């Protein structure tokens, strides 16, 4: 028993006491830096613990500290310099004497420290909301605003702009600036996906640091000097790595905008839905921004177990197909869902055992693959998923371009190697032992089952989202849903089981695959299942070994998922 409790207990966190706005709070002595190394906790982080936001532009928890915006200047009190006895000066009551910091050359003027780069010192007092601190903040904000264009009305950042937010909180209604503003280039084409408005830039260098230290592409820098400083690429080299759009996310103002999203929609109209990227096996957490059933953008959603706060450009822009004109939206082979399901069910019931093969694409959810597996078990069908391999990189992109290969393996649709059964299925069709093929979300003509082979089948049931060579051959075509149009879970390559929520309504008659699979399974196996996604997931979690070991439930997945043993 004692062994178990030992392994589960996290190591004790050493804390230190600090006074924030007169209130003593305990904060951890060490905090993870941008690379995850434990380093001394800073003033800014201590204030966060105290529930007080220190405004900032250049500081970002996942980037190296720059300390250039000065917005996080805070007035602090420090213990005096230790005397010859090694002890700091004391008050009469025996407590440590704390002196508010002043300028060394003008002792009547308070001196601030930057919260992002100043470590806590025992005894330190942080005057996070004092008039002195406020004055410093207002002054920095005033400096940032004097040359900033007043173009919020046409700026894409409006509504999620730190300059706007802090101006409301710390700014003045009227400017005393009596000079001409500095003008800088606008609509600068930085690269294929990024546009720069140099006038809006506050030169926080987040984009430079991201590109250099995270994307490992030292592509951005600053040219010119002083107030004329401008973000630029080297000469005319385009800013073009697979992570450029993250700079738009971290740009605290409207300087860097996404060519894909700019001028498309005001952000306050967007409905936000937690989702996942389906571009590869990494399973980056995302937020879908949609309005009136149209998706406008993906943004990464922070999950340190998966993607941190980032996602790749190819994944981010991989959403246009969702609303495309040629989406499958009609049931084919029958006059509607009810007839189709009844007809397919009765055909499957009559299928001799071993005459059916099931290909469940690894783009289907865990729940859908689980239901397909149930169906396959009943029919004693051979199963597989098609592999889709590509190139990966050092950061997030993974060579496995299926979002749910791991789920397919764990549930038993695919073996250890995806696609290893496909040739057996092909030869089964060829020799006539396999008469029925069920395909979900896979164009099997691309993975070794030719159209000629499909022609030999007695029954081809296909569910998909977009038309392809396989859907063209289907006897029954069942229109499915994009992930954005349903709920479900994927298991990423590292075994993280994560859920996504529904943002959009599916087009036409398209339905979530798990819903009609549930009906098909019930008809074919005679077993009643759960008709809600929560119930279905929990049922699956009780049967699939890896999920069972972690006692997964839909609720337990939370927003960021749970990692299972692979």
């Amino acid at each position, binding site marked *: 028993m004692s062994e178990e409790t030992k392994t589960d207990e996290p190591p004790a966190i050493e804390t230190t006491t600090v006074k924030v706005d007169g209130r003593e709070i305990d904060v951890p002595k060490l905090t993870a830096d941008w690379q995850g190394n434990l380093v001394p906790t800073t003033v800014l982080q201590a204030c966060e613990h105290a529930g007080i936001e220190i405004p900032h532009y250049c500081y970002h928890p996942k980037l190296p500290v720059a300390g*250039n*915006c*000065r917005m996080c200047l805070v007035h602090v009190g420090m213990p005096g310099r230790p005397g010859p006895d090694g002890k700091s000066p004391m008050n009469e009551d025996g407590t440590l004497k704390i002196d508010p910091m002043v300028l060394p050359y003008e002792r009547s003027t308070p001196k601030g420290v930057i919260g992002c780069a*100043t470590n806590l010192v025992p005894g330190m007092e942080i005057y996070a909301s004092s008039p002195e601190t406020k004055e410093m903040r207002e*002054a920095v904000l005033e400096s940032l605003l*004097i040359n900033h264009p007043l173009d919020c009305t046409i700026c894409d950042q409006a509504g999620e702009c730190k300059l706007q937010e802090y101006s409301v909180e710390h700014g003045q209604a009227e400017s*005393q600036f009596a*000079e001409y503003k500095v003008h800088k280039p606008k609509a600068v084409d930085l690269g294929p996906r990024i546009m720069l408005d140099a006038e809006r830039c506050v030169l926080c260098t987040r984009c430079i640091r991201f590109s250099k230290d995270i994307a490992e592409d030292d592509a951005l820098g600053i040219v010119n*000097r*002083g107030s004329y400083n401008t973000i630029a690429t080297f000469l005319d080299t385009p800013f073009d790595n697979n992570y450029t759009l993250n700079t738009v996310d971290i740009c605290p103002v409207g300087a860097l905008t996404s060519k894909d999203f700019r001028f498309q929609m005001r952000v306050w109209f967007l409905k936000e839905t937690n989702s996942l990227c389906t571009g590869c096996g990494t399973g980056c957490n995302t937020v879908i921004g949609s309005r009136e059933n149209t998706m406008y953008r993906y943004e990464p959603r922070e999950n340190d177990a998966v993607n941190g706060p980032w996602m790749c450009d190819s994944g981010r822009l991989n959403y246009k197909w969702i609303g495309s004109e040629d989406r499958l939206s009609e049931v084919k082979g029958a006059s509607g869902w009810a007839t189709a399901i009844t007809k397919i069910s009765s055909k499957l019931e009559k299928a001799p055992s071993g005459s059916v093969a099931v290909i469940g694409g690894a783009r289907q959810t865990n729940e859908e693959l689980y239901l397909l597996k149930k169906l396959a078990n009943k029919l004693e069908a051979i199963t597989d998923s098609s592999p889709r391999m590509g190139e990966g990189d050092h950061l997030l992109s993974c060579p496995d371009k299926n979002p749910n290969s791991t789920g397919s393996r764990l549930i038993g649709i695919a073996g250890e190697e995806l696609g290893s059964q496909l040739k057996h299925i092909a030869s089964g069709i060829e020799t006539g032992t396999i008469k029925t093929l069920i395909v979900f979300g896979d164009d099997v003509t691309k993975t070794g089952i030719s159209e000629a082979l499909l022609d030999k089948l007695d029954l081809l049931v296909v569910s998909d989202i977009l038309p392809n060579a396989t859907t063209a051959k289907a006897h029954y075509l069942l229109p499915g849903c994009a992930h954005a149009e349903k709920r479900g879970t994927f298991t990423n390559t590292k075994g993280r089981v994560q859920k996504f929520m529904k943002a959009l309504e599916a087009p036409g008659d398209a339905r979530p695959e798990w819903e009609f699979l549930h009906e098909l399974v019930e008809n074919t196996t005679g077993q009643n299942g759960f008709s809600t996604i929560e119930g279905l997931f929990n049922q699956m979690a009780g049967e699939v070994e890896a999920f069972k070991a972690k006692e997964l439930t839909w609720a337990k997945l939370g927003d960021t998922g749970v990692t299972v043993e692979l």
Partner: protein
Amino acid sequence: MPQEHKLLLKYADAPDYSKDLECYERHGGYQALRQALDIKASTGADGNEVTAQAQLRKSVLDSGLRGRGGAGFSCGLKWSFVRHPNPKPVYLICNADESEPGTFKDKQIIYKDPHQLIEGMIIACWANHVNLAYIYIRGEFTEGAKILNTALAEARAKGYLGKDILGSGHDLEIHIHRGAGAYICGEETGLIESLEGKRAYPRIKPPYFPAALGLYMCPTIVNNVETLCNVKHIVEMGAEAFAKLGTPNNTGTRLVSLSGDVKQPGYFEIETGKVTLGELINDPNFGGGLRNGNQLQAIIPGGSSSKVLRAGETFKVDEKQMDLLDVPYDFDTLMKIGTMSGSGAIIVIDDSRDIIECLANLAEFYAHESCGQCTPCREGSLWMNKALHRLTHGEGRAEDPEYLKHIAHNIQGRTICAFGEACAWPVLSFVDKFKDKFEEKVSA
């Protein structure tokens, strides 16, 4: 009558003196180095061994030598921030960027007596266990870079540089790096960034104190040319004798660059604090007085960033009443009267000058030279410049003095490096001390 006291410039301007090694040696050159290398380890009061290097560092501390680049920080104390033995290599950089307007003293040494600097550097490197050092020289000193390179080659050929210097077992190489003409490269962490091949953005301190995380994130000592030359003289004279030069806590000599409206602008070497501002300006041995019978209007006493002093000002220093012209030219008294001796550059302004034009000129320099890394300085330096030029172009407003002070207040003490003070101080002091001139300008 006040006199120059020539220590560093003892030979530089002598008619028969040349910058080659042979001449330097003939004048006793590299004897201090031999002397330093001959120091033997001793036993301290606690019975522990005190290395020869530690003794030399102690002697530089005891000499009271203060940095000649601008801040006047104790050289020995600066050296003591580097830990020995250090697991990382320790670097020494000679700051020869000399970019503070009004300053032209390091140039005299580099151009006329380069071996004095090199000898000082070799001794400083030996004392601080440095095997690789750099001279960061301002880009405009093209000839200076050539001279130093020639001198380094001569020193190398004679075994003063390279492997096993004079049989001491100590190796040292010195490289010259030419800047590309930015004022900010004189800021020590900006200089280090520039030396690393990057844009000269000063580093935030903490954590990047050069003594711990300097060049290539290794402990680094950055000293001014004049400071390093003094090290040679401390070895030669001994710390005690050196400390007797000048005044207490303001030891040694200072090279003063005198410019502006005086009859005899130029550079002078004085015992620190032994000559007053008035003597420097008016004495025939120094400035020789103002030109064309003009009257003194103002003194910028320590490079363009130091706070201005107005003619006729009086001060109370240590309970003693003092006229401006009686202020001894040293570190501490100038601090006590609210300004600084900085890089030792005195700019004299007579009453023929429009003082607002003078300030606008300074502001323009700082707006042009702000690196733009941090917000208050980037935006504020140009803001002040624009406001001042509006004033000089006849569009001044009654509220402009307060407006200017507001901008300057928002810069000083809130920036990454001391450039913030450098650009704010002239504005703050000119506005404070010449309010009447601002009023005249506005009503004109």
